[in-house]
């Protein structure tokens, strides 16, 4: 991802009200980590598993933060239990910022990732989690803002899947 796109992504999160981010780093979007870490208006919390990243974000949301979880799409599988029980059943809005490996628009797709990618959207749908696929920076800020508004309105996680130009 070009540095400019990473900066726009983080600024878009901030403009949408995100001030608390839990994460496990991955390859496609990792440039956003130092940008968030160096931003005094955002709190960045490293987790050891996406399952707890979701639970920590949920606790922070209930405590008054507007939280996001940054993860690889493999993290959707790892965190599906907390996404369903805390996210959906308890009803806590969380923005999921997902590096979408192995999907058709993933510019670094290979045999290593394609199975992971193929099952991502069906898994989100099975969990009842709405998603939006972003392949370029067109309307990036608007899309992030729309996703946060939808998550809050639905009292549920909402996934932004980043591929295409974001996966270069």
């Amino acid at each position, binding site marked *: 991802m070009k540095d400019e796109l990473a900066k726009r992504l983080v600024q878009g999160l901030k403009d949408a009200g995100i001030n608390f981010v839990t994460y496990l780093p991955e390859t496609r979007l990792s440039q956003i980590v130092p940008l968030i870490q160096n931003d005094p208006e955002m709190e960045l919390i490293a987790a050891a598993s996406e399952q707890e990243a979701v639970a920590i974000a949920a606790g922070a949301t*209930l405590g008054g933060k507007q*939280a996001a979880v940054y993860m690889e799409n493999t993290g959707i599988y790892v965190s599906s239990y907390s996404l369903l*029980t805390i996210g959906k059943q308890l*009803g806590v809005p969380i923005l999921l910022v997902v590096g979408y490996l192995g999907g058709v628009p993933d510019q670094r797709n290979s045999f290593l990732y394609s199975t992971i990618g193929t099952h991502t959207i069906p898994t989100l749908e099975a969990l009842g989690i709405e998603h939006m696929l972003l392949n370029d920076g067109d309307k990036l800020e608007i899309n992030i803002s729309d996703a946060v508004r939808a998550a809050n309105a639905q009292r549920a996680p909402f996934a932004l899947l980043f591929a295409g130009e974001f996966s270069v």
Partner: protein
Amino acid sequence: MIRHECLELLAGKMTDQLVVTSQSGQRIEWSHLSQHEGNLLVGMMGCAVGVGIGLALALPHRKVIVLDSDGSVLLSLFNLATLGNLRPKNLIIYVFDNGVYSGSRISYPTATAGNTDLEAVARGAGIKNARTIRDIETFKGEGLGALKQNELAFFVCKVEESLMHREIPRPNTDLAENKYTFVRYLERTEGKAIPFIGRG
């Protein structure tokens, strides 16, 4: 030591703390002992510590208490590594370790009935103030004393298996109702709106 007697003592100390429980016997017993609006009765195993960490980080001036079980902690051991590095000073975790999956009704042993020592795991994960409590006097002293300290505390409370939670009526507050009561309590006591609520 019986879990219910520990919870009874703890309930007597509650003022404005926030209490998160996982899904197991202590959720039922705590809901019976305390109807405080600052209780969040999380209805699943393995998520209470994570939610408690998030609350503690979002509200660093509030004391956050997690009531958990050995089965739940074993389900999410990665929490200990995260806790050992974050060390939120306003968080206390009481793990009521009865060595069995009591909720299963067959009470088969957990790993802590065998070779696993949760205090040692917690210490190895970086939680300096991890202690095992084996009797009610120590719970009264060290366990409840942590409420006045400003340090992450992780107590493994070794309790006998008790089936009291099966005799107590389960809470009739559903998860969403509990969540909104909790959030409205926070709004009132913190004097600010919780952003995701919004206006309809």
